[in-house]
């Protein structure tokens, strides 16, 4: 039953028609929400009593961190679905996400280190979160290289899917491992964001910015998927041009 439903939407031409309004909506929502969120984050939200003005970096740092993790989870699930059901559309979607995910990961790392300097005193600490994100960056890079390397080969799709699944097995392992590492070697200075401790005045711009970034991510991913489908069509029809 579910399979039939998926089958209907897994047709690339139908999928193009389905995603078109979503793409438009997410573009408008992204621009609107990012504008409001930036205004709120820079002008109206109060400075933190401990970190003073530097807390404003949070409003771009945290949403991009979330989105870059979400991007990897999406790649994982699409690859898994591809391996189970063998619909080429899924892997086509999964293959377009890494380039967006790596940008957000890079943003997270750079803004994080810029935030770290005034609060911790250094740009870089080998602690749990930072190291795991650096590994995530390398895994994204590996995925992108893999996709490029298999461009002229038959089984690029399946290899991409399997590598992303192996990476997904490793991500929680990396996280836990580095947590362990940290507690033994380097206590404290761990940067945490506990939900309840944050005040509503700071939570609202954070949520708005996250939604804006999420919609931007959806817009970029859908546009990429659209152009990939069209590229595939051009290649497979073997035009004389």
């Amino acid at each position, binding site marked *: 039953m579910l399979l039939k439903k998926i089958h209907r939407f897994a047709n690339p031409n139908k999928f193009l028609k389905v995603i078109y309004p979503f793409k438009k909506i997410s573009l408008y929502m992204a621009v609107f929400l990012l504008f409001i969120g930036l205004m709120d984050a820079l002008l109206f939200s109060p*400075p933190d009593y401990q970190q003073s*003005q*530097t807390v404003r*970096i949070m409003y771009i740092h945290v949403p991009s961190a979330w989105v870059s993790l979400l991007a990897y989870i999406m790649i994982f699930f699409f690859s898994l679905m591809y391996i189970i059901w063998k619909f080429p559309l899924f892997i086509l979607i999964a293959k377009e996400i890494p380039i967006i995910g790596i*940008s957000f990961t890079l*943003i997270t790392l750079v803004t994080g280190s810029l935030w770290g300097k005034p609060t911790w005193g250094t740009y870089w600490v080998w602690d749990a979160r930072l190291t795991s994100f650096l590994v995530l960056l390398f895994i994204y890079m590996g995925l992108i290289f893999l996709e490029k390397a298999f461009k002229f080969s038959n089984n690029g799709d399946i290899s991409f899917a399997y590598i992303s699944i192996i990476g997904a097995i490793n991500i929680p392992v990396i996280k836990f491992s580095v947590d362990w590492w940290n507690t033994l070697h380097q206590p404290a200075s761990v940067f945490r964001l506990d939900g309840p401790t944050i005040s509503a005045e700071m939570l609202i711009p954070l949520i708005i910015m996250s939604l804006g970034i999420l919609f*931007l991510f959806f817009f970029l991913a859908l546009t990429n998927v659209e*152009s990939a489908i069209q590229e595939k069509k051009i290649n497979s029809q073997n035009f004389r*041009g």
Partner: protein
Amino acid sequence: MLNKIIFFFEMDGYAFFIWSAYAFWFFLLTLLSIKVISRKNSIEKKIKELYLKEQ
């Protein structure tokens, strides 16, 4: 008024960190968007050309 604007840009002396973070964020996102959108546009152009040729 001017004081307020200057205060806003100074950010209590953390201006460098905050503004460079925001600048990097903005720069990378624009770069990504431009790349994605230009790819889409070039493909649509190609399709149009091929369509004209077929006719």
